[in-house]
C-alpha cells in the first residue's frame, strides 16, 4: 500500500464554485417558494369545488329529506299544487331490488371471469384481458344500449322491465369485479402457489383453497366498488326500465331507480322536483360513502391480519 502524503489542495475552483452557488441560493429559494405557493394553491382550488359539492348536497339535500319523502311514492306535481311531489319510495325499492340482484349475479360471474382471466394465456387470452381492462372505462350508456338492442325485443317483448336494467348493471359490473379478482390473484405470492403444487394439489384445488382465499379482501374491495358504481349509475338503465311511479318489489315489472329519478327531476318543470333531486343526491352520496368506508375497513383489517 502506498503512502499518501499530499494534503487536499484548497483549490480556487472549489471556493469559486461554492461562492457561485451561495450567490445563486437566494434566487432559487424565492423562485422555489413561489412555485410551491402555486402548488399549494392548486390544492385549495381543487378542494373548493369538491367541498362545494359535498356541502351543498348535505345542506340542500337534508332540507328535502323527511319520513314522507322516504316512504311515499312519487307524485306528479301540477299547477295548483306545485309541491305535491310525494316521495321516492318507488325509486328506493327499485334501486334495492335491481342493484341487489345485479350485484348478486355479478359476484359469481365476475369472480369466475377473473379466474378465467388469470388463467388466460396466449394471444387470445391476453387480448380478452386487455379488452376487459378497457371495458371498465367504457361509457356505461353502452351497456344500456346493448341490452336495449339485443335483449329488449327478443327477451322482454319490447316492454320496459327492471330485469333488463338488472342485466345492464350486471354486465357493467362483471369487468370491474373480474379485473379486481385477476389482479388480486396475480398478487398472491408465487411461493404459496408453488407450495400448493409441490404438495401435489391440483391447480383447481390451489385456486380454490389457496389463491382465492388469499385474494379475498382485494376481491371484496372490487365488489364494493362495483356496488357503489351500480347504485349511482343512470345511463345503463335509463332506456330499459321505464318510469314506474309504483313501488314494485317484482324486478320484472317496470321500475324506477334513484339515479334515473334524479335525472328525470332535473329535467322537470317544477322547482320542487329540482329540490327533490338534491335529496336523492344526498342519499346516493351517503351510500357511496358508506360502501367506501366498508371497503377501507376491510382492507385495513386484512393488512393487519
Amino acid at each position, binding site marked *: *500500500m502506498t*503512502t*499518501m*502524503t*499530499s*494534503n*487536499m*489542495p484548497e*483549490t480556487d*475552483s*472549489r471556493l469559486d*464554485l*461554492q461562492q*457561485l*452557488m*451561495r450567490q*445563486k*441560493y437566494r*434566487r*432559487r*429559494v424565492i423562485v422555489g417558494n413561489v412555485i410551491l405557493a402555486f402548488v399549494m394553491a392548486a390544492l385549495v382550488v381543487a378542494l373548493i369545488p369538491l367541498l362545494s359539492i359535498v356541502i351543498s348536497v348535505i345542506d340542500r339535500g337534508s332540507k328535502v329529506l323527511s319520513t314522507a319523502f322516504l316512504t311515499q311514492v312519487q307524485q306528479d306535481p301540477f299547477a295548483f299544487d306545485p309541491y305535491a311531489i310525494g316521495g321516492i319510495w318507488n325509486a328506493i325499492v327499485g334501486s334495492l331490488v335491481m342493484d341487489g340482484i345485479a350485484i348478486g349475479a355479478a359476484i359469481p360471474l365476475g369472480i369466475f371471469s377473473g379466474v378465467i382471466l388469470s388463467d388466460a394465456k396466449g394471444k387470445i387470452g391476453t387480448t380478452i384481458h386487455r379488452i376487459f381492462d378497457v371495458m371498465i372505462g367504457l361509457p356505461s350508456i353502452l351497456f344500456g344500449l346493448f341490452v336495449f338492442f339485443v335483449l329488449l325485443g327478443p327477451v322482454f317483448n319490447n316492454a320496459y322491465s327492471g330485469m333488463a336494467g338488472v342485466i345492464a348493471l350486471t354486465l357493467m359490473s362483471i369487468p370491474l369485479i373480474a379485473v379486481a379478482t385477476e389482479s388480486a390473484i396475480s398478487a398472491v405470492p408465487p411461493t404459496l402457489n408453488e407450495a400448493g403444487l409441490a404438495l401435489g394439489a391440483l391447480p383447481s384445488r390451489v385456486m380454490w383453497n389457496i389463491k382465492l382465499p388469499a385474494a379475498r379482501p382485494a376481491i371484496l374491495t372490487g365488489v364494493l366498488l362495483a356496488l357503489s358504481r351500480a347504485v349511482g349509475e343512470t345511463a345503463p338503465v335509463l332506456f330499459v326500465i321505464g318510469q314506474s311511479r309504483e313501488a314494485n318489489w317484482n324486478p320484472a315489472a317496470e321500475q324506477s331507480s334513484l339515479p334515473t329519478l334524479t335525472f328525470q327531476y332535473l329535467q322537470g318543470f317544477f322547482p320542487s322536483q329540482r329540490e327533490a333531486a338534491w335529496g336523492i343526491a344526498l342519499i346516493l352520496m351517503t351510500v357511496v360513502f358508506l360502501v367506501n368506508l366498508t371497503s377501507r375497513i376491510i382492507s385495513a383489517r386484512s393488512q393487519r391480519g
Partner: protein
Amino acid sequence: MEMSMEMKENSTIHLAPVVQDDAQRGSSEVAMRLNDVSVAFSGKTVVRGATFDVRKGAVTAMIGPSGSGKTTLLRALNRLHDLTPGAEVKGQILLGQDDVYGGGIPTPILRARVGMVFQRPNPFPTMSIADNVTSGLRFNGVKDKKKLEEAIEASLWAAALWDSVKDRLKAPASTLSGGEQQRLCIARALAVEPDVLLMDEPTSSLDPISTQRIEDLMQDLKKIVTIVIVTHNMQQAARVSDDCAFLLMAEDRAGELIEFAPTAKIFNDPQDSRTLDYIQGRFG
C-alpha cells in the same frame, strides 16, 4: 497485506487484518468535528454521544454491527434527517468553521458541500449520464454551459468512468451496470466539488469486482475530497480507511461510539475489549 495467523481459530465471520501504522495518512487539519452528537426519532434515541474529528483528506470509516447507528450518524452530517418527521439531532457538528445545525449555512448549500453516495446506486432514471453528473450543479443554479461541460469530464474522470461512457454521455443512466451506476453517483456528488463525501455502504449492492474498483477509487478520491464511509465489512474498513469509529448498540438499543482511533490502532491494538471482540468476529 497479510492476515494475522493467530486470529484464525475464531475466524468464522471475519478475519482481522493487520493494518500498517501510517501516521502520514491524511492531514491533521479537521474537516468535520462531531461533538457529543445524538440522533433521536420521535424521542427514541438511536445513536448518542458521538465525539470525534474527521481529518481533512483522510478516509474515516464508521464500523459496527447492524443497529449500532452508523448510518443514522452519517445522515446527521448532511442534515438528511430533516426529511424525517420527528427526527432530532443534538450536539454540535462543525464543517470547517461552520456549525451545521447552527443555521449559518442553508441546508441545500450544506448538502452541496457535504455530498452523499447511497447504499444502492440511485441515478435519476429519466436523465442522461451527462445530465446526472450536472444535476447537482443545475440544482444549485449553475447554468453556464462551459462550466457544466467541464464538470462532466472532470467528475467522470475522477470517478474513473470517463473512458467507458465518453461516447454515450446522452444515453440514459439506466443503461449502465450497477457498479458503473454507483460510480456515476460518485461523479454526480463530486461535480459540485464538495468538501466532504459521505458514503453509506457504497458497495453493499455490488459484486466483488465492482467493489474492488470503488475501493481503489477511494484512494485516489481522498486527494481531492474528505471521505466518511459507513461499512459493515471490517476488511473494507481496514483496506480503505485511515481513521475508524467503532459503534455498538447499548443496552437500551441506542448506538454508542465505543472507540475512535487511527484504523491501524483499532485493528491492531484496540483500547476497548468490545472493539477487540468485534474485530475478532465474536459478535456482529
